Structure formats: C-alpha cells, structure tokens
C-alpha cells in the first residue's frame, strides 16, 4: 500500500468518454506502462431511517474495491468509517428497516489497471445507472508511505501523461499533519473516491453521452 491520489480528468475537446480513455491508455503505453487487468470501485448509498424529524437523513456509503476484494468499507461522509469483510452486504440487507438502499444512486468506476515501474495507474469510466458521467484516474506510488514526501514526485508523473490537468493535493492528506503515513487499509483512497463520486452525482448528465 502506497500513497494514492484519485482525480477526475476532463474530457478531451469534442471526444466522448471512451475516446478520452483510449487516448489516456495510449499515452500510458507510450510511457512504457504494462496493462495488468481490470479494476472496479463502486459505491452504494443507504438512507438511515428512523431519525427524528428535522434532522437531515444521514447517508451511509458502502464501497467496494477490487484491490481488496474480500473486504468492503462503510462510511458516513466526513464521519467514522468501518472496514468489514464481504458479508457486510448481506448484513445491510438484513438491516433493511434501518437503512434504505437508494438504488438509483449506485456509482461505479470500471476500467483497466496499468503498472509502470513502482506506480499503479487505474483509468476508469464513472457510470451512474448505466450512463457515463466522467473519467476517474487513480495513481498509486507503492514504495512511499508518507504523502507529504512524494507529492511532488507524483505530480511530475501525472503531468507526464495527464498533461496540464493535474490535481491539487487531496484534502485527505492536507488535513493530516505532515509526516503521518497512509494506513494499510485504503481508507484514504476510498474517501477520495467518495468525494469524487459525490461530485459526479451532483453534476448534470454529460451532454452527448449515450447509454
């Protein structure tokens, strides 16, 4: 587990989601990256019922990552989070009375996984109810565990294939004091994905995207 950065890539001029993804793949392959399979990250939303009226309903997000296929993560936005094994989904079904599944709000990012030297790059298409909403790129630098140390290094790497659209330091790292390292259970990665998915959910459907 290394330092991970998740960001959204805007579509290229006049190109569709798939075409932009193909452009990114070609750039990665030109650099010398090797494709190593596929990845999936998804997020389901549950409304917490049984709250006193007047309080906003709390939303529980249950996320899965193909990098850790045997576990899933449950978290409240900005609140506590829980790492559980795969049977947690079944548990949520049993807790139907307390948590309602918002079926139309499932967001997932699916795509290819590339490896370049010590970097892991995942380029995926974000879809919500089978309509493409954008492109997510996750870059992980495996040897380093302190985000503050290698941020410049990662920025340079992302610039080499993303061009000018490189992100700022993720807020997850900015809130931690300098020098605290990334824990091994990818909570930080999933938090970043959650922020990205929430942003995508609020966006309008992209013009010109087909089913």
């Amino acid at each position, binding site marked *: 587990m290394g330092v991970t950065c998740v960001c959204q890539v805007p579509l290229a001029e006049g190109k569709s989601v798939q075409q932009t993804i193909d452009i990114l793949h070609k750039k990665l392959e030109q650099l*010398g990256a090797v494709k190593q399979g596929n990845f999936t990250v998804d997020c389901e939303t549950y409304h917490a019922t049984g709250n006193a009226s007047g309080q906003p309903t709390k939303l529980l997000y249950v996320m899965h990552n193909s990098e850790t296929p045997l576990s899933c993560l449950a978290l409240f936005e900005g609140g506590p989070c829980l790492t559980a094994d795969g049977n947690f989904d079944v548990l949520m079904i049993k807790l139907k009375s307390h948590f309602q599944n918002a079926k139309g709000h499932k967001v997932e990012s699916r795509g290819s996984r590339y490896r370049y030297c*010590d970097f892991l790059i995942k380029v995926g298409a974000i879809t919500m109810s089978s309509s493409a909403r954008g492109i997510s790129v996750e870059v992980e*630098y495996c040897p380093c565990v*302190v985000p503050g140390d*290698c941020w*410049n290094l990662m920025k*340079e*790497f992302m610039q080499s294939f993303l061009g000018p659209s490189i992100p700022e330091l993720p807020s997850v790292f900015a809130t931690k004091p300098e020098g605290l390292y990334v824990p091994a259970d990818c909570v930080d990665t999933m938090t970043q994905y959650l922020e990205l998915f929430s942003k995508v959910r609020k966006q309008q459907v992209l013009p010109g995207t087909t089913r």
Partner: protein
Amino acid sequence: MADAMNVGVNLEAFSQAISAIQALRSSVTRVFDSLKDGMKNKETLEGREKVFITEFQDNLQSVNRDLNELERLSTLVGRPSESHPLHNSGLLSLDPVQDKTPLYSQLLQAYKWSNKLQYHAGLASSLLNQQSLKRSANQMGASAKRRPKVQPSTLVLPPQYVDDVISRIGRMFPDMAIELFRPNGTSAVLLVTLGKVLKTIVVMRSLFIDRTIVRGFNENVYSEDGKLDIWSKSNYQVFQKVTDHATTALLHYQLPQMPDVVVRSFMTWLRSYIKLFQTPCQRCGKFLQEGLPPTWRDFRTLEAFHDTCRQ
C-alpha cells in the same frame, strides 16, 4: 603379418577386402536364389536334377573361393596403430548411435569450454591481483618462518566491542533506529530503520560490513518462521536499485585499520536517503527518470543523482 605392425592400416588391402566382402555377399545371394528358384524345366527328371546339382555346386564353390580371398586379405589389413592419442574417450567416438547420445561431440565441446574458461580465469586473476582488494588488515607472511595462518587483528574483535560501536553510532543519528541481532553465531546483523522511508538489513563480519539489503518501510523484514529475512529482494524497483548502490558503498568505504570509521561513514551515507522521495536530481532537476527517483548518493558530497545522471 610383418607389415601389420610397422605400417599401420594398409589402405590398399582395406579397399580390396571391402570389395571381397561385396563379392562374397553376392555369391551367397546367388546360392539362395538358385535354391529358391528350384529346378529348371528340362525334358527328363534326371536332366533337371543334374542341372540343379551342378548349378548348386558351382555356387557353393564360388562362395568358398570368395571366403578364402577375404581371409587372405584380412590378414593383410593392419591393426589400427597402438599409440591412439584419444585412449578411452576415443572409444566413445565409435558409438554407432550418434544421434541419440552424442557423447563424444559433447565431450569435445565441454573440454574446449573448460580450456577457455581456465585461460580467461588466469587472465582475470592476473589483472585483479594488481590491485589489493582486501578490506581487512592482513599481514602478508613473506618469510617461511612466519606461520601462514596469521589471523588479521581487526577480524577478531570481541562482540561487546562491536555492540558498543554500533550503539554509539545509533545515538549519533536520531532518525536512524539500529537494532542488533546475532541470529547465526558471532556475526552481527543490524536492522536499520531510516525514518519512515526504508529498512536496511546489514550483515556484518566483526566490524566489517559484509552485505546489505534494502527494503521499503511497509515491507516485511521477517520471514515466516519469525527470523530476519536477509535474502529476499524488495518488491519495489526503487529499493532494489538502492540495494545495489548500498553494496557499491560498502565496497567503496574502506579503511582496513579503522573499521569503526568505515561503519560511521556508511551510516552517514545511508542517512542521506531520508529524503529519497523529496529531492530532485542535481543534474537534470527532475524527480523521475524512467519511473525512478534519484537513487544515487555521491560518496563525498551526498548529493542526489539519478542512476543514469551520475557522471
């Protein structure tokens, strides 16, 4: 018989003997052909029998003649010369099943290869001996009066002294944590943790650094049975490169009479890696070159360079 000993193989008689064999074969074939054909068609039974017997006798006599000729020639053909240079290995070359067990040709190749290897090794040793590579203080026994087995003084140090030196060096550098183990006898094995960047295992022989292996901070240093794993390489290419550089460093820092200075210099050099991911290369100014950060640290100035950027 006389010329058999002196001349060796008589080639003329040899070719004659081969044609005599061919003649013998054809006459024997004729005998069996005539038997197979049986009696020829003639008017009377007696005539037929007579002709058949005459033919058969002729054939048998020709066989006899050819056999006698062959025996005569075989005595003329000499034995192969006694002074065979190949001895036992030459007998291998007579093996008829050459395709399945090409022993002789493989034997020749192996011999040529080992000859070449010996020659190259001789050249290499003469070149290497020009520069002394011994890192320990050894007294070369020149006169025969001295005992040949003089143990170098710096190789036999009490373990307590080694422990003291290591703990003193550990206190000098606050961001390096040095743990000392002695899993195999008196050789010390150090586990050096540098900040949150890397972990190094240094295998020592009294106060000389023998071997080092560098792994990432989040990698496992213990093997399955709980002992320190001193053999498996790191999973990350950057730390594999740093391991190579560390091996170069331990060979570079040499001072046979004062090994504790050597250890201190090596630890100072290793400490410069605390900013492995933060420093750009001094030559090209970039962080990454082929996906690797600047992994080389100059031995004197401790500046960071990419492996491909150092001069």
